């Protein structure tokens, strides 16, 4: 850094911007973690990924444009790191014959005797463990989109940008991913019932 006599005002402004950036980024860490936890395979991986993400973010803070979506910017770093770790090696399994329809899970949950009659209670037949396990078994490409949109509250547009895929792909993966998730949930209910 052979900068000739940088003036004190500029240095001060720079430091102030950086501190503001760091604080804003740290303020989003809960949300970043929530997404990372399910993009990565395990808690440990999520921990590492979030740390690497922040290390990189703090180093390259200048490439963030103030006023744009910082949460999406951080997630972009995180998903790229995740890809770099080679977890993309997993192929997307064939999808034929899965989701008969969107109502499949509901029908499965209500077909047995003694099923609650109001829809809000029907979901309670699924345990938290069922849901965590079902989400983990959704193939990555689909899960990433579900995690960003349905869990992380990102818009289709943000998810497209973060994952670097067209918005139409976000929509179709989301659509299929939700069905895969429901199929997995239906299977877990079936196993418990047998």
């Amino acid at each position, binding site marked *: 850094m052979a900068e000739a006599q940088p003036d004190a005002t500029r240095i001060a402004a720079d*430091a102030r911007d*950086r*501190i503001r950036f*760091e604080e804003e980024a*740290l303020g989003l*860490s*809960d949300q970043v*973690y*929530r997404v990372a*936890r*399910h993009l990565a395979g395990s808690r440990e991986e999520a*921990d590492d990924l*979030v*740390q690497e993400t*922040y*290390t990189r973010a*703090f*180093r390259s803070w200048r490439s963030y444009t103030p006023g744009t979506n910082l949460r999406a910017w951080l997630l972009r770093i995180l998903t790229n790191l995740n890809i770099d770790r080679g977890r993309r090696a997993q192929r997307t399994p064939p999808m034929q014959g899965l989701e008969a*329809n*969107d*109502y499949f*899970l*509901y029908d499965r949950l209500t077909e047995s005797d003694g099923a609650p009659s109001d*829809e*809000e209670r*029907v*979901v*309670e037949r*699924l345990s*938290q463990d069922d*849901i*965590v396990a079902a*989400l983990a078994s959704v193939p990555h490409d689909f899960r990433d989109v579900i995690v960003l949109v*349905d*869990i992380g509250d990102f818009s*289709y547009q943000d998810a497209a940008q973060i994952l670097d895929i067209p918005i139409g792909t976000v929509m179709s993966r*989301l*659509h299929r991913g*939700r069905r895969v*998730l*429901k199929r997995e949930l239906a299977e877990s209910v079936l196993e418990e019932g047998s």
Partner: protein
Amino acid sequence: MGHHDDPCAHCEEMMQPYLDHILSEEEMREAEHHLDECEWCRKRYRFEQSLRVYVRTAVSEPMPAELKKKLAALRIPLN
């Protein structure tokens, strides 16, 4: 009854976009009109809505406090 008829199949196709709020006004009215009349579909829409909330709640775990500390420590010190 009636779920093999076209209106319910169509309504099913509209469920995800409806819940994602991406239907046009006209499509939205169309879906709502059907839902007003069809308990069969209405129950399934309500279920889907509850499921989304339920899934989101079930998979959200708080960030470990330890990790939060580690992140704060990654900040680049001023010098």
